[in-house]
């Protein structure tokens, strides 16, 4: 069985699997763009932007793109903002791993090469693995294919110092027990929303919006190129249109893929969708089928159903504990259901607005804050439900903060989100962090393919805990809930980042 291993635990910065990865990446980078087995062809399958590719030197102005048939069949397929996010990326990784392995073998390397994963959650492992951060090969020669110049990291004052600030990411999605959720402001589910015939992309599912999106932006970062653009330009990892060009992309996605299986193993309620529209993929809605080239160039068509059968995908991971702790907390899939009553499925749950801000909020510099007026009747309803125990079989009362119609031109931006309860009559105010949002994909969502103003991206954060903490309190003002957004890196004014509306939404019976 092929085992994907932790990149930090391979036995050295340049352990064999990394060295072979670097050699193979080097070999693929030298192939022509239009070759189905070239490095850049594979990046283009995720996304493509002529301006950025040419500016960063990944495409010469005269260089030919893949022929139209190949372009239409393979390129720009990446699935974001729908329940196909996980299965599409799993197949994409499988195809990529096969290509790298075939290349490694052709270079006389091991036939059991596997793609390592980068588990930034594990203690001491949130830094970029060193082999990716050095322009040199281990022998000191300077054209290491794993190194990428346009990988600036989370702090613009220290470009190139790449790590994942742990305060900006979390594993809250692992505690969500449904794969798919609602589009109307409640929980979107671990894997994302069933978008049906509607166009997807603006509402990322739970694991996609945390930690997937943040890691992209924190690793890629952004940089000002005053001669090229008044706006900051994204690092390769920061936007879907260049992310696949960075060799670290694949290790990040291997970790997300690992977390999918960790999630399934950790609780008997955590199962993939049974709906045939998920199993058969977007092709069942008349949309593009999932297809990637095999190492010989022939197309391999796959479905979410195949990707969901983990025993059949041909690889496993060395460790399934989400944060890389000793696996005590991870129960086997075969274990008896835990004592907790099975939660009612959220199909048919009430999802209702409790309050919403009136004006758009511009975000620049270190962040922004506003307050959300709460409807008194709705607050009373939520507080009443929270004050009484959940009846068996009933849904628990949950509250979500929605950041809707977030627009702008800074895909690397990550905003820490806090809710704030103002003290009354001299009582102290209280503030709680409720997670963060990463604007991965924001530029495209702002200025859509269609060339007109898009609606941007929308985010949902679970604020049940702080809401419950203060719902019955007489010492805080509950007519308004403060919301503070704190930028991990300063947001450029020219990036025009704004939140169209902030709302509080309840989900329950």
């Amino acid at each position: 069985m092929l085992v994907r291993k932790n990149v930090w635990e391979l036995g050295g910065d340049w352990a064999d699997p990394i060295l072979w990865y670097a050699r193979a990446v080097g070999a693929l980078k030298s192939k022509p763009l239009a070759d189905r087995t070239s490095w850049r062809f594979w990046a283009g399958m995720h996304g493509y932007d002529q301006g950025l590719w040419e500016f960063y030197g990944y495409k010469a102005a005269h260089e030919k793109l893949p022929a139209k048939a190949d372009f239409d069949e393979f390129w720009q397929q990446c699935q974001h903002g729908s329940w196909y996010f996980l299965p599409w990326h799993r197949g994409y990784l499988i195809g990529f791993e096969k290509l790298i392995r075939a290349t490694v073998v052709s270079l006389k390397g091991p036939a059991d090469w596997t793609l390592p994963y980068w588990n930034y959650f594990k203690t001491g492992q949130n830094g970029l693995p060193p082999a990716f951060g050095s322009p040199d090969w281990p022998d000191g020669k300077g054209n290491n294919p794993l190194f990428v110049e346009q990988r600036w990291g989370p702090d613009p004052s220290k470009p190139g110092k790449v790590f994942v600030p742990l305060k900006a990411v979390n594993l809250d999605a692992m505690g969500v027990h449904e794969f798919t959720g609602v589009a109307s402001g409640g929980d979107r589910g671990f894997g994302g929303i069933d978008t049906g015939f509607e166009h997807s992309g603006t509402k990322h599912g739970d694991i996609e919006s945390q930690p997937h999106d943040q890691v992209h932006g924190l690793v890629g970062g952004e940089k000002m190129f005053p001669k090229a653009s008044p706006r900051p330009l994204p690092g390769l990892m920061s936007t879907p249109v260049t992310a696949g060009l960075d060799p670290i992309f694949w290790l990040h996605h291997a970790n997300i893929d690992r977390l999918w299986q960790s999630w399934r193993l950790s609780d008997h309620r955590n199962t993939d969708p049974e709906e045939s529209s998920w199993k058969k993929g977007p092709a069942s809605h008349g949309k593009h089928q999932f297809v990637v080239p095999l190492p010989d160039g022939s197309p391999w068509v796959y479905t979410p159903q195949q990707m969901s059968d983990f025993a059949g995908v041909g690889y496993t991971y060395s460790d399934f504990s989400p944060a890389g702790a000793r696996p005590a907390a991870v129960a086997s899939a075969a274990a008896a259901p835990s004592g907790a009553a099975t939660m009612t499925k959220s199909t048919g749950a009430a999802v209702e607005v409790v309050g919403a801000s009136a004006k758009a909020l511009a975000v620049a510099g270190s962040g922004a804050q506003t307050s959300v007026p709460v409807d008194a009747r709705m607050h009373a309803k939520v507080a009443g439900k929270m004050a009484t125990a959940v009846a068996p079989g009933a849904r628990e009362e949950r509250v979500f903060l929605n950041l809707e119609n977030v627009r702008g031109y800074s895909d690397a931006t990550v905003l820490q989100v806090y809710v704030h309860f103002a003290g009354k009559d001299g009582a102290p105010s209280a503030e709680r962090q409720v997670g963060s949002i990463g604007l991965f994909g924001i530029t495209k969502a702002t200025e859509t393919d269609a060339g007109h103003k898009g609606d941007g991206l929308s985010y949902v954060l679970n604020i049940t805990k702080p809401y419950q903490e203060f719902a019955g309190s007489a010492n805080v003002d509950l007519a308004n809930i403060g919301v503070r957004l704190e930028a991990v890196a300063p947001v450029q004014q020219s990036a025009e980042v704004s939140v169209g509306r902030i709302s509080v939404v309840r989900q329950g019976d």
Partner: protein
Amino acid sequence: MTPAAYERLQIRIPLAIAAAGAWVAMAAMSHERKLVAFCSSDVWTALSLDRFALAITFYSPASLAGEWMLMVAAMMMPTLAGAMGHVRARSLPHRRKRSLALFIIGYGATWGACSIPIVFAMLALQLLQLSPVATIALVGSLILIWQFSPAKQACLNRCHDQPPLAAHGIAADLAALGYGVTQAIWCCGTCWALMLVPFTAQDGHLLAMAATSAYLIAERLDQPRRPAWEIRWPSTVARLLWFRLSVWRRPENTGRVAA
């Protein structure tokens, strides 16, 4: 059923019932419907003010307007699920009905206003006194030019807009109303040319309307794309049909990943 699919049904079922009602009403009235007759009647074969006055008294404007709105309801309701789902989701629960009603009012009023240029265009066509072949050629090329134009695509793209909507007070009412108006503007821009089809079809009018309606729904299934002069047809539907047929033809692909 998935939670999101269930939510969509909360909008789609009432819309489907309302649309079905409108279709039934149109079918029931088809023998006494005057709008089509008005537009294609031979009172226009000879231009005279007397005859125009006669026509106006014969076809009451109120009943013409009623028929127009019925037609809009029948054809447009099935396309409104996304926008109305957005209004519902973004409104405080006790304001949902009111916001949806305001959306419909804004939407309907704008379509009502759109009827004036469309009806006048039909009249102008009648006044030209062309042969049926020439009429079809003229209307057909007008439709094709619009369908393949960047302006049409720009309108179609905007039919999918889901902007922020205020939730409290008068601002919420204005937001719902305003969203209805803007949706109707983009919708008129998307649909006006194809809506000429049923008007020119004198026989089988209802059938032509149904076909047009289906086409308008199919158009909306395609991803938004950059507006340009290009030949377009609803390709998502074509792929969907092809997929359904091929699943039916060959056994399901449930095989494992080839090593």
